[in-house]
């Protein structure tokens, strides 16, 4: 899967958890989930579970803790896919 394809899927997965939906249109790798998109910190668990289901991977707690930005999410997902 190409990097951009993973990024687009991440956006789709995160979308239901985003409060600041207007920020989603211009989101890039540096966009922060909590601060920029207004995701409730508790929902990071749900987002990671959704990543696991979508990409058929397992993300451990240490890796999950590294997900701060959209770029982090893509990185963690691609690491687990290798």
């Amino acid at each position, binding site marked *: 899967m190409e990097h951009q394809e993973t990024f687009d899927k991440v956006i789709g997965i995160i*979308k*239901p*958890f*985003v*409060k*600041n939906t207007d920020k989603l249109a211009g989101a890039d790798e540096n966009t922060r989930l909590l601060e920029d998109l*207004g995701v*409730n910190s*508790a*929902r*990071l*668990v*749900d987002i990671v*579970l959704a990543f696991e289901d979508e990409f058929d991977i397992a993300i451990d707690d240490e890796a999950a803790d590294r997900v701060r930005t959209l770029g982090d999410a893509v990185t963690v997902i691609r690491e687990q896919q290798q």
Partner: protein
Amino acid sequence: MDRRVVVTGLGVLAPNGHGLDEFERALREGVSGIRFYEKLRELKFGCQVGGAPQGVEEIKERYFSEEQRFSMKSTVISFGAIAAVDCWRDAGFEVPTDASGEADFDTGAIIGTGVAGIDLMCGYAGPTIDAGRARRMGSTIVEQVMCSGVSARIGGLLGLGGQVSTNSSACTTGTEAVVEAYWNIRAGRAKRMLAGGVEGESHYTWGSFDAMRVLAANRNDEPEQASRPMSASASGFVPGSGAGILMLEELESALARGARIYAEIRGTNVNSGGQRQGGSMTAPNPFGVQRCIRAALDSAGIRGEDVDAINGHLTATMADPREIASWQAALGVAPENFPPINSTKSMIGHTLGAAGGIECVASVLELDRGFVHGSLNCEDLHPELEPYAASIPHETREMQPRVVAKASFGFGDVNACVIFGKWNSPDDN
């Protein structure tokens, strides 16, 4: 300072109607919200009928964002949130579109429930945990099954900064919430309080009552006739669900912002019968009931004959005649002078923790809009109630009550009573 407390907003999501106009029409026309549930037949319930709000998923989509709905899978949360938003708007406020800005430190919420999040706990969390998949459940279980889940959700949606809490006292819950919120304002701790009760829709709750043999099990083929308070053929209550929430407000605050005032809360009381003198976990001590009503009248500064109408607890069990006997003793009026009394449960079933909330909304609507609704299914009046026959309307009476008394009684032998009075602006006097 002797603060007066008035009602400036109402929200209701009942089995026979959503919103004030639909609910009022249902009350006036005697529309039953009791339906047959195939699932209850499949599960071999004795009572296979119940009351639940209709069209809730569609309402949720209109009211809440996808992000908000993600943690609204338990019906107690969604019912409460819908009624609270309705009440908030009815009181003249806008629902915040985002979480920026300060909390509203002048407003709190006491929103009670009988059984919190049981649908999600029994239907999803329990089986998932037992299957060794606890870590796959996601983040939203605790906030939906904790007892205070419903008030917490409402507090966040509306940005409330006063006390935000859930009370629970079985079937007294909703009325007790109104009393507690009233005292919050009287004590000067808040200008406004959302108050009321919510009960989720769950066959796990209903099944637990079915196990006690206290539900109506003999009218599954006639659901709209199954809830029969005050009837000789009453055989138990019909379980229900929904939400009823009131905005209580300090009079000065209401006047200052030009709010519409539906009613004044003239007096209140909460007590317990101590499970003595005939009372038990499941039956009220009649002396406790009478003391509660009398104390509410005293706090309102009125006499029994000043009560123009009563919205009873009246669930359709053997306790109905005893309840009316207690009302009569507490009011101190002869049966021929007894005020009209009705049972909203004849239309919506017993909505448990929501009952007091929904029935307080009904009581305030009756005061504000000038009627006393009839009770369904008691044409065959219980023989002990014959002396009160003239006071038990079967169809809506157009009248202008100035004082409506509402009481609720619950397992644990707990009681609550609220005296609502018609409020006239000084300009009208």
